[in-house]
C-alpha cells in the first residue's frame, strides 16, 4: 500500500501553512476561560511571514499568548502599539523572528508571525477570558471561528490596516476541535449545540462537551445552556497591580417590578442583501413570522427591508389587527435576498425617519456583515430609537451587532441555521415589553467609595445580566445593589442585589478584566480618546491588556546562520467561507439535526395569501404586477373570449403610488362580465391596483366589512364616480372625452345588471376618500394625509 502523507493545499496547489485550531475551555461561575491553539507549519523552502486575522467573542479579554516555535517555548509582553510595531519591523529586518498580536479597529485580532523558517512549526496558544451574561435563564456560549465576507471597504470603512484585511478561499479547509468543561451548577444545566453535533459526558460537578464529529473553521461553535438557576453575584479579588487594592465584579440578575407588560411600537428592518441568501433569509423569515405572532392588540409595527436601498412597506407604523398581521405575513413570504449590497446605515436612518409618535424601537434582522459599523452605530446613537437585533447565520458579525444594540440601549440575540427561532424572539419581546428603566445606578456598601467603577448600562431588561466592575483601595464587605428609577421623580428601587464574599485569589483574572472594562469605558467617553490616551496606555501595559493602543510582542534572536537574509514571503491565511453564506450550500438541509430543535409553529410560506383559485383563473394570466402594471396581454377565461388585448392601461407612477388609475380600472373591467370582476384584494392586486389603495381597503375599511363587500364597493365607487373630462385642462379633456365617457357608460351598464351586491354607504365612504373628478388621478389628500391605519 502506498502511504501518502496528507497535506493541505490552496486552490493553486500551494501547501497551506495554517493547519487549524484546537480550543479548550473551562466555564466556572461567571467566567469562561479559553485556550486556543493555532497550528502553523511552513512547508516550503523559503522563510515566510504568516498573517492571520481571526475573531474573538464579544468583550473577550486576551489573558496571554504562549508560543512554541520548533522546540522552543516563548513568552512575550504587551506594550504600546507603535513601540511593538517598531520592534516587530526591526526584528524582521534583522532576519530574526517576531510574533505580534494586534486588536483591530473592528475588534478582530491579527496575528503576525514573521520569519517562520522553512519546514518550521509554530503553535500559538491564545488564552482569553470572558464574563458570561445570562439571558432569562439561558446561557449562550459563542466561539467564533471565521470572519465572513463583509460589505464595504475594510480599510476605508472598517478602519483596518491593509495587512489586517481578510481574504476568503472557497476551497480552504482548516480543522477545528473543541473541548469545554462546565463546572459547578452549570454542569447540571440542559445542554445543546445548534451549531455542531456534540458529545456530552456529565457528572454532578463536571460536564465535558466535545465535538461529536470532525469539524472545520466555517461556523461559530455555539453551546446553549438552559434551565439555569442563576442569581446576582459579587466577587472580590486582589488587584493585579496595586498592593492591598481589590477589584470587584458585580453581576446582577435583573428583576423588574411585576406588571411591566408594555405595548410595543417597533419598526422591523430586514437585511435582504446577497449575503443573506440561502439559510439566512429562511431563518430571517421564520424569525419574522415568530415576531408577528408575538404582536398583541395595542401594539404598532412597520416592516421594511434593505440591501442597496431600503423599501418600506408603509409610511408609518400600523396598528396591530388581524388584517395588518396578514399583510405583514404576506410581505414576509415574498422576501428574498435579492437587494444587493448592505447599506445598513442609510437603511437605519430611513427607518428612524418613518413617522411615529411616542417611544419607538427598531428590530433589525441581519447577519451584520458590514465594514462601516462605526458610522452605523454613530447614526443609530443620534436617533431616539433603541435598536434590538436578531443576528442570523452560521457566522454573523457578533461583535458588530452587540455593539450596535448595546450602544443604543437595545439588546441582541442570535439564531443559527436550523435553530428554533421562537426562544430568541420570545426573549426579545420580553425585553421590548419591559418598562424602560431610567437612571440606573449602583449602591455600594455604606461609606465605601470605589476608586473607579465602570458605567452602568443605560437600560436593563428583566432576567438579563448587568455586569459592573470596580476597584477599591482595600477589601470591602456588605451588599452592592443595582438601583433604578421607574419614573421621573419616583424613589429608586433595587432591581438586583448581591453580597460581597471573601477575597478570592484568582491569579489576577478579575482584576485584569475589570481594568479592561475600565479602559473600554474610558474610550467610549466623548473626548477621552485624546485626553486620556497616555493614561489608558499606561493602564493597559500595567495590566498587560491588549487594547486599541497596545500590541502583544514576542521576539526570538536566532543564531547568525539561521537568520533570514531577505524580506519574508507573505502568507496571509485566507478565511474559510462561512457555512451557508450567500446561499453557498445549506446548513439547514444537512442530515444532522441539532438538539433542542423544536417543532416550529411558524406557518410555512404558502400561496394562501396570494390570489385564491377562482381569482387566478381570471387574473393570473394578466401580466400586470402591482408594482408596474403595464399591458394586459392575455385573459385565459374571459367570458368575452378575448384572448389577446394590446390595450395600454392608464397607470400612475409616482413615489406615492404606482399602479392603475381609476380610468385604468375601468379599462380592465371593460368587456368583462361582473361575475368575472375581481372580488378579493389579491385579485385587485393582480389586476394592477397599487399597494397603498389595497392596504387601505384591506386594513382600514376591511375591519368592519367583508372582503367581497369592500372590493365590490370599491369597484362601484370607481364606476359610478362623476368624472369630469375637463378637470385637467381643455386639451387633455378633449382627448379624454372620447375615451372615458363611452368606457364608463359600458362598464356602468354591466354594474347595473345587478350581479354585484353593493353597500351604498360603503361605496360613498370609499369614493370620498379615494376619488376626485379626475379619472387619471387618485385623491391627493388620501396620500398626503397619514393613513388612518397608521400611527397618528
Amino acid at each position, binding site marked *: 500500500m502506498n502511504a501518502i502523507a496528507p497535506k493541505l493545499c490552496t486552490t493553486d496547489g500551494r501547501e497551506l501553512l495554517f493547519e487549524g485550531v484546537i480550543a479548550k475551555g473551562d466555564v466556572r461561575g461567571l467566567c469562561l476561560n479559553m485556550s486556543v491553539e493555532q497550528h502553523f507549519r511552513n512547508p516550503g523552502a523559503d522563510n515566510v511571514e504568516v498573517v492571520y486575522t481571526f475573531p474573538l467573542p464579544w468583550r473577550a479579554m486576551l489573558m496571554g499568548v504562549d508560543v512554541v516555535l520548533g522546540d522552543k517555548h516563548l513568552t512575550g509582553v504587551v506594550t504600546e502599539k507603535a513601540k511593538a510595531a517598531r520592534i516587530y519591523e526591526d526584528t524582521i529586518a534583522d532576519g530574526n523572528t517576531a510574533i505580534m498580536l494586534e486588536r483591530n479597529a473592528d475588534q478582530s485580532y491579527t496575528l503576525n508571525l514573521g520569519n517562520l523558517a522553512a519546514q518550521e512549526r509554530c503553535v500559538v496558544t491564545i488564552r482569553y477570558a470572558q464574563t458570561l451574561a445570562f439571558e432569562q435563564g439561558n446561557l449562550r456560549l459563542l466561539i467564533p471561528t471565521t470572519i465572513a465576507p463583509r460589505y464595504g471597504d475594510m*480599510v476605508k470603512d472598517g478602519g483596518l490596516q491593509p495587512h489586517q484585511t481578510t481574504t476568503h478561499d472557497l476551497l480552504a479547509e482548516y480543522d477545528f476541535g473543541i473541548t469545554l468543561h462546565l463546572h459547578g451548577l452549570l454542569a447540571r444545566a440542559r445542554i445543546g449545540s445548534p451549531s455542531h453535533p456534540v458529545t456530552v459526558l456529565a457528572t454532578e460537578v463536571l460536564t465535558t462537551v466535545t465535538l461529536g464529529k470532525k469539524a472545520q473553521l466555517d461556523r461559530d461553535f455555539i453551546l446553549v445552556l438552559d434551565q439555569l438557576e442563576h442569581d446576582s453575584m459579587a466577587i472580590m479579588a486582589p488587584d493585579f497591580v496595586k498592593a492591598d487594592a481589590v477589584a470587584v465584579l458585580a453581576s446582577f440578575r435583573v428583576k423588574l417590578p411585576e406588571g411591566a407588560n408594555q405595548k410595543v411600537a417597533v419598526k422591523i428592518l430586514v437585511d435582504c442583501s446577497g449575503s443573506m441568501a440561502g439559510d439566512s433569509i429562511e431563518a430571517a423569515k421564520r424569525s419574522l413570522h415568530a415576531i408577528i405572532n408575538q404582536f398583541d392588540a395595542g401594539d404598532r409595527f412597520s416592516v421594511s427591508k434593505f440591501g442597496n436601498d431600503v423599501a418600506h412597506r408603509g409610511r408609518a407604523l400600523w396598528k396591530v389587527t388581524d388584517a395588518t398581521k396578514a399583510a405583514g405575513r404576506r410581505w414576509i413570504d415574498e422576501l428574498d435576498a435579492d437587494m444587493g449590497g448592505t447599506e445598513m446605515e442609510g437603511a437605519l436612518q430611513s427607518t428612524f425617519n418613518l413617522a411615529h409618535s411616542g417611544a419607538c424601537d427598531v428590530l433589525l434582522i441581519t447577519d451584520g456583515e458590514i465594514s462601516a459599523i462605526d458610522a452605523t452605530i454613530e447614526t443609530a446613537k443620534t436617533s431616539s430609537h433603541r435598536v434590538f437585533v436578531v443576528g442570523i447565520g452560521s457566522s454573523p458579525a457578533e461583535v458588530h451587532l452587540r455593539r450596535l444594540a448595546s450602544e443604543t440601549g437595545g439588546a441582541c440575540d442570535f439564531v443559527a441555521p436550523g435553530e428554533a427561532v421562537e426562544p430568541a424572539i420570545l426573549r426579545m419581546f420580553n425585553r421590548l415589553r419591559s418598562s424602560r428603566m431610567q437612571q440606573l445606578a449602583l449602591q455600594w456598601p455604606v461609606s465605601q467609595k470605589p476608586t473607579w467603577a465602570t458605567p452602568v448600562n443605560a437600560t436593563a431588561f428583566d432576567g438579563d445580566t448587568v455586569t459592573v466592575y470596580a476597584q477599591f483601595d482595600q477589601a470591602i464587605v456588605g451588599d452592592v445593589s443595582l438601583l433604578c428609577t421607574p419614573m421621573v421623580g419616583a424613589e429608586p428601587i433595587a432591581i438586583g442585589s448581591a453580597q460581597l464574599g471573601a477575597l478570592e485569589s484568582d491569579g489576577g483574572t478579575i482584576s485584569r478584566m475589570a481594568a479592561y472594562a475600565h479602559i473600554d469605558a474610558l474610550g467610549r467617553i466623548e473626548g477621552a480618546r485624546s485626553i486620556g490616551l497616555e493614561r489608558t496606555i499606561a493602564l493597559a501595559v500595567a495590566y498587560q491588556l491588549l487594547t486599541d493602543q497596545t500590541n502583544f510582542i514576542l521576539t526570538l534572536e536566532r543564531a547568525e546562520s539561521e537568520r533570514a*537574509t531577505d*524580506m519574508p514571503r507573505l502568507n496571509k491565511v485566507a478565511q474559510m467561507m462561512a457555512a451557508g453564506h450567500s446561499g453557498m450550500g445549506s446548513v439547514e438541509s444537512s442530515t444532522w439535526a441539532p438538539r433542542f430543535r423544536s417543532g416550529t409553529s411558524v406557518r410555512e410560506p404558502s400561496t394562501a395569501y396570494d390570489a385564491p383559485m377562482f381569482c387566478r383563473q381570471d387574473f393570473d394570466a394578466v401580466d400586470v404586477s402591482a408594482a408596474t402594471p403595464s399591458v394586459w396581454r392575455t385573459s385565459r377565461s374571459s367570458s368575452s373570449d378575448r384572448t389577446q388585448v394590446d390595450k395600454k392601461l392608464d397607470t400612475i407612477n409616482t413615489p406615492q403610488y404606482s399602479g392603475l388609475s381609476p380610468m385604468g380600472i375601468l379599462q380592465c373591467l371593460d368587456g368583462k362580465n361582473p361575475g368575472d370582476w375581481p372580488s378579493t384584494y389579491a385579485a385587485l392586486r393582480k389586476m394592477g391596483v397599487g399597494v397603498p389603495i389595497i392596504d387601505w381597503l384591506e386594513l382600514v375599511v376591511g375591519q368592519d366589512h367583508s372582503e367581497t363587500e369592500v372590493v365590490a364597493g370599491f369597484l362601484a365607487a370607481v364606476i359610478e364616480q362623476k368624472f369630469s373630462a375637463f378637470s385637467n385642462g381643455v386639451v387633455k379633456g378633449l382627448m379624454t372625452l372620447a375615451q372615458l365617457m363611452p368606457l364608463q357608460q359600458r362598464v356602468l351598464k354591466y354594474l347595473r345588471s345587478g350581479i354585484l351586491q353593493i353597500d351604498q354607504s360603503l361605496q360613498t365612504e370609499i369614493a370620498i376618500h379615494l376619488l376626485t373628478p379626475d379619472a387619471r388621478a387618485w385623491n391627493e389628500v388620501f396620500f398626503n394625509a397619514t393613513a388612518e391605519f397608521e400611527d397618528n
Partner: protein
Amino acid sequence: MSNINTSNPSHSLAELCVLSDLSVRTVRYYVQVGLVDRPDGETRAARYSNKHLEQLLLIRKWTSAGVSLERIREMLAGGDAPIAPRPRAPGSIEIRSHINVADGIELVIEPGRAGLSPEQVRAFLKGVMTTYQQVIDSTDQSANKTGRKT
C-alpha cells in the same frame, strides 16, 4: 511609469515611509503583495528609489479614492485590465444554456463570453457531473458505514 529614472538617489525604508506618509508595515505589505517593486538589496541594506516612491504615492492616491488593491494591481501593471467590460447595450440578446446537473444544481453557460467550443462544454459538463456523482456516492458510503456501526 517606465520613463521614471531609477537611478535617483536611494532611500532607506524609514525615509520612504516618511516621504510617502505610510507606515513601515504598510509599505512592506505592498512590496510583499507585489504592488510595489522589491527594493535593491535585502533586509536592512534595502534601498528604495523614486520609482518606489512614485508607486507608493499612486497607491495612496487610489486607495483614498476607494479603489481596491486588486484593481490597483491591474492599473499598475499597465493596460492589462484597466478597461471596464463594455456594458451590454439595452436590447442586446444574450443566450445562455441552463444545464441541469441535478435537482437544485444548474450550470449557466453563455458560450459567446465563455469562449468554449461545444466539445469543451461537453467535457466540462461531464467533469462536473462525474464530480457530483463522486460526492454523492462518497456521502452515501459514509452514511451506510455509520448506519452499520450504530
